[in-house]
């Protein structure tokens, strides 16, 4: 094991997989920086395509390359830019296998980094993974630790289906243990970050630290909180979540996305449907409210789920 940052973990995954598999190419804006800044070994330069600002075009180029023998990793940089490339991601990448009756595989990874709570305002602060959770043919992962981001990126690069990875800019400098040896985190498998018996707390992406802190605080008050990170949002590991709720009977979901149409909403619907009789109290969604993200910190800071919101939600479950 060694202690590395989330950011380092991302690029270890890139570097190791590019060496392991010659068909991996990187596509994205300004990524010639990777080798020039020593983030990726310059021996790999020939497989790094630093693109013009043309998101739909280069995502589609990635899909075409994936259909014909490469394994592209396409960096959309900031997650708010996904809207420009929706057609290629949804209509082409996710559907091509199906529409060709299985003739074509699209082993592509889209990466998008969520920037928020940093005064980047309405055009740069989205957390748009929910948009992709309803897209059959596409896998959606939201890694929250160095271990998970490295392992999930590696799994994504080895997957024969398109995977969109939502990284989190606010986690870049968070440190964590990562094995020296090769490993993957399987797509579609949740992780129980903390065991507990009274309440199930599902936490997505960057809200994990506050969720674990809230769990600690609640432990001091005698409430045992199980913290589950789904890691993959599509396909969702419903077994793990339902199993936990079946035991605890109480569920809160912490999701940094906007409230309406959030991952929290979908999980709530699934849980209500499947283990209704286990539920002792209504499922709590702890989310960002349905607002456009404002620039001023005086307006923005209040918006995202924080530890006290999470504790308040847990208390509502009793």
């Amino acid at each position, binding site marked *: 094991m060694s202690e590395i940052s989330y950011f380092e973990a991302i690029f270890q995954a890139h570097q190791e997989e590019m060496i392991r598999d010659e068909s991996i190419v990187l596509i994205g804006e300004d990524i010639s920086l990777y080798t020039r800044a020593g983030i990726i070994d310059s021996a790999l330069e020939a497989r790094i395509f630093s*693109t013009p600002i043309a998101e739909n075009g280069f995502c589609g180029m990635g899909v075409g390359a994936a259909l014909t023998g490469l394994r592209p990793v396409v960096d959309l940089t900031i997650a708010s830019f996904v809207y420009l490339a929706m057609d290629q991601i949804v209509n082409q990448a996710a559907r091509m296998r199906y529409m060709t009756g299985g003739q074509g595989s699209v082993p592509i990874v889209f990466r998008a980094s969520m920037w928020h709570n940093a005064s980047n305002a309405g055009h740069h602060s989205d957390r748009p993974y929910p948009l992709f959770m309803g897209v059959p043919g596409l896998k959606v992962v939201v890694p929250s630790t160095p271990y998970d981001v490295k392992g999930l990126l590696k799994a994504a690069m080895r997957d024969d289906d398109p995977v969109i990875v939502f990284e989190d800019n606010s986690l870049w400098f968070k440190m964590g243990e990562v094995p020296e040896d090769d490993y993957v985190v399987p797509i579609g498998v949740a992780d129980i970050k903390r065991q507990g018996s009274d309440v199930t707390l599902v936490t997505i992406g960057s809200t994990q630290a506050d969720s674990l802190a809230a769990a600690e605080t609640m432990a001091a008050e005698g409430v045992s909180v199980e913290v589950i990170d789904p890691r993959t949002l599509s396909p969702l590991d419903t077994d793990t979540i339902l199993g936990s709720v079946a035991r605890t009977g109480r569920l809160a979901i912490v999701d940094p996305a906007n409230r309406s149409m959030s991952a929290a909403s979908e999980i709530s619907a699934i849980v209500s449907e499947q283990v209704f009789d286990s539920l002792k109290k209504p499922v709590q969604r702890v989310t960002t409210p349905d607002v456009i993200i404002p620039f001023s910190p005086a307006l923005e800071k209040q918006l995202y789920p924080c530890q006290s919101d999470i504790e308040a939600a847990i208390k509502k479950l009793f």
Partner: protein
Amino acid sequence: MKASQQRRVEMLLRIFKIRYFEEAVKKQQQLGQVPGSVHLSIGHEATIVGASMALGKDDFVIGNHRSHGHPIAKGANLPPLMAELFGKATGVCKGKGGSMHLADREVGVVGESGIVGAGLPLAVGAGLSAKVRGTDQVSLCFFGDGASSEGSFHESLNLASIWDLPVVFVCENNMYGATSPAREVIAVEDIADRAAGYDMPSEIVDGQDADAVYEAVNCAVVRARKGSGPSLVECKTYRFGEHAEGLIIPVPYRDSEEVERWKQRDPVDLYRDRLIRGGVLSESQADDLAEQAGKLVDEAVFFARDSEFPDPAEAFTDIFKMPSAGQFEERGHE
């Protein structure tokens, strides 16, 4: 480079195949055998065949919504194509793609797109792939005049050009995008005029002349194959029928005189006559070819008609190659 005589005969055969295939599709659509609506290639045959025959077996083709002809021109077997249009399990895409998505990997037709303009970036990607993998494959993209107004056109030509990718962009300019005349919605008369904005060579050819198309595309293919980068070939052509069979357009939007004028230059007749006049084949040999094509099309129709519909459960396969836990419990009703 000109096509060899042998190749020209094959070109005529494929032109016949497309024409008869499309006529059969039209008829079967009217008979209710082909569900949905279909965009036929009738009128475009010379462009499609001239361009496709300039490619090798391993080269890639990306089509669009009007792409029954593209796999045929690339040498595809007809029965699985026709069965696809019937929505049968034996279809080239197992009945899941249909008319607007007749991909046939056997002959290098990688994908076709019902989304206008979406194929261009895919073609650039196939070119990138050839370059990175170090093969000498070329990627050819068919698109319409209408598609040239999409942002994807611009992004794709720029991308292909900056890396000198082996891509040939073939515009089937039939002067209309659905009911919209190109002269009203495209600021320039020739799409080829846009190539200069990407430092890309371009050529305008008579899309009713299979030899001319072949030569222009061949030249672009040679250029691409030797690593000199992409080209744009604009073929002036015309669709003889409606935008789509099975879709009602309430008023005429083309001059009937214009339609008639173009029909005078039917690519099937033109090429047949040229080969006969040029002594490449005799009239009866040409008739044999036509008959051969007709038979193949008939067989395709029989095959399609006699094939089974897919099992309803097939709707739930091919979504992922590597499925993960939990997602597909729900099934539709019977």
